[in-house]
C-alpha cells in the first residue's frame, strides 16, 4: 500500500468515524427524549452543536491550553526549529508546523491542527532533555507524519466530538439524578436510558482510541521513511518506554495526540473498566511498535541504550 492510498484510506475511515459520532449523538439525544423530555433532548442537541462548532473553530487554542504548550519566540531554540524544518521538508509538507514547548519533565510530543498549513508540534522539555538529536528527529518525524497523514484533523475532531458526547450524556444524567420530569413508560425505559447515558461516553472514547492505535504504526513507518532511518524511531520508542515519568498535564481528552500515551500509567480513566483496559489504550504497546520497526528495517535494537548527549545540551537547556 502506498502512502497516498493510506492517506485516502485514513480519510475514508475518518468519515466513517465522524458519521459514527453523529449517529451516537442522535441515539443519545433520542434516549434523553424518550426517557425524560423531548425539549431537553432538543436543548442537549443545540448545546452539542454550539459546543462542537466552538470546539472545532478554537481547537488550536483549546488543545494548546489543555496541554499547556507555549509558543516559542522566533529566535529561541533555533537548532530545534531547524530540526522541525528539516523533518517537514523531508515529509514534503507545504509549510513548516509551528513549534510549541510544554514545560514538563516527562518526555513526550504531540501534533495538533486541522490542516497541514495551520498545524503545530508540541514537545516537552523532558523530551529535549532525554533524547539525543537522532532520536528527537525521529519523534518530530513521527509527529510530522501525523500531520501529513491528516491524523491531526481526525484526532482534533475526535477530541471535540468525544467532549460533545460526554457533555450531552452529562446533561441527561444530571436530569435523571436531579429528578427531571420523567415520561410514562416506566422503569425499563429509565434503566435503558441510564445505561445508554453511562455507556455513551465510553463508546465515544473507544471509537476515538481505536482510531489512534492504527495511526501510530503508520506514523512510525512514516517517520522511518522521512528520515530513511527506521532504527532512530525504534530507539526513540525504547527510550520513551524506559522512562518512568508521565506527563503531568495530560488530560484524557487529549491523550491520543501524544507520541507516547500519557495516560497509560494513569489509571483514573480505567477505574472500573479493567477488563476493557486494553481497548482503552490510545496507543498500541510500545513493544509492538518497536517490533514492527525492527521487522521493517531489518535490525534488532540492542538491549541497552547508548548514553548519548541529549539535544537539550545543544539548545543550552540542560
Amino acid at each position, binding site marked *: 500500500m502506498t*502512502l497516498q492510498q493510506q492517506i485516502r484510506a485514513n480519510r475514508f475511515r475518518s468519515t466513517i468515524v465522524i458519521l459514527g459520532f453523529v449517529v451516537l449523538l442522535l441515539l443519545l439525544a433520542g434516549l434523553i427524549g424518550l426517557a425524560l423530555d423531548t425539549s431537553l433532548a432538543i436543548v442537549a442537541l443545540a448545546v452539542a452543536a454550539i459546543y462542537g462548532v466552538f470546539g472545532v473553530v478554537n481547537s488550536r487554542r483549546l488543545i494548546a491550553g489543555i496541554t499547556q504548550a507555549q509558543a516559542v519566540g522566533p529566535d529561541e531554540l533555533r537548532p530545534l526549529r531547524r530540526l522541525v524544518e528539516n523533518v517537514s*521538508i523531508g515529509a*514534503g509538507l507545504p509549510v513548516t508546523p509551528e513549534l510549541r514547548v510544554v514545560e514538563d519533565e516527562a518526555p513526550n510530543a504531540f501534533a495538533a491542527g486541522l490542516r497541514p498549513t495551520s498545524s503545530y508540534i508540541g514537545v516537552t522539555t523532558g523530551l529535549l532533555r532525554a533524547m539525543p538529536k537522532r532520536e528527537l528527529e525521529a519523534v518530530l518525524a513521527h509527529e510530522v507524519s501525523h500531520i501529513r497523514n491528516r491524523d491531526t484533523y481526525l484526532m482534533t475532531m475526535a477530541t471535540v466530538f468525544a467532549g460533545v458526547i460526554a457533555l450531552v450524556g452529562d446533561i441527561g444524567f444530571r436530569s435523571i439524578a436531579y429528578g427531571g420530569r420523567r415520561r410514562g413508560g416506566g422503569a425499563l425505559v429509565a434503566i435503558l436510558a441510564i445505561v445508554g447515558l453511562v455507556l455513551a461516553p465510553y463508546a465515544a472514547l473507544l471509537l476515538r482510541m481505536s482510531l489512534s492505535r492504527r495511526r501510530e504504526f503508520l506514523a512510525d513507518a512514516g517517520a*522511518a521513511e522521512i528520515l*530513511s532511518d527506521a532504527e532512530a524511531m525504534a530507539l526513540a520508542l525504547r527510550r520513551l518506554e524506559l522512562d518512568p515519568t508521565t506527563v503531568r498535564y495530560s488530560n484524557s481528552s487529549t491523550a491520543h495526540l501524544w507520541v507516547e500515551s500519557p495516560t497509560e500509567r494513569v489509571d483514573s480513566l480505567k477505574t472500573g473498566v479493567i477488563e476493557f483496559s486494553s481497548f482503552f489504550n490510545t496507543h498500541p504497546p510500545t513493544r509492538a511498535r518497536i517490533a*514492527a520497526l525492527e521487522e*521493517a528495517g531489518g535490525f534488532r535494537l540492542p538491549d541497552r541504550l547508548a548514553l548519548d548527549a541529549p539535544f537539550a545540551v545543544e539548545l543550552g537547556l540542560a
Partner: protein
Amino acid sequence: MLWLWVLLGVLALLVVLAAFGYNRLVRLRNEADTGWANIDVQLQRRTDLIPNLVEAVRGYAAHERAVFDEVTRARAALQQASAPGAAGDANDALTAALGRLFAVAEAYPELKASENFLRLQEDLTDTEDKISAARRYYNSTVMHYNTAIQSIPWVLVAKPLGFRAKEFFSAAGDTAVPQVSLAPSA
C-alpha cells in the same frame, strides 16, 4: 440490444478507470515537481551563502586563491546545472570544494572565532541538512512516479501523454529509498 448496453457499460467503466489512473499520474508528477522545487530553493540558498563565506575567509587568508577559485567554479557549475542528476553531481562537487575551504579556515584561529564566519558555517550546515531532507522526499516521489509510468498499462501510453521518467537527485549512495511496510503487523 443487450450486448450494446454491455459494451457501453464496459466502455464507461474503462473511461472512469482511465480518468482515475490519469489523475493519479498527474498527481504523482506534481508531487515530484514540488519535491524538485524544494531542492531548488535550498540549492539557491546555498549558492547565495557562498560569496559571503568566500569573502569572510579571504579577509584572513587572501593568498589561498586556488581554493577560492575552486569554490567559485563549483558554485557556478551548480548554478548552471538544471537537470536533477547534473545538479546532484555539481552539489557534491561544491560540498567537496567547501570541505577544502573549511580545512583552510582551520589554520586561522581568528577567522574561526569570528562571529560572521561561525554564523555562515552554521547556515551552510543547516542548508546542507535541508538539501538532504529535500532529496529524500524528492527521490521517493520520483521513485513512485517512475514506477507508476513504467507499470502496465501506463507504460504503453505514458510517453504519448507526456509522462517522462524523472531523474533522481543523486548523492553518493543515497538514492535507494528504503521500503517500509505501512501495514501494521500487530
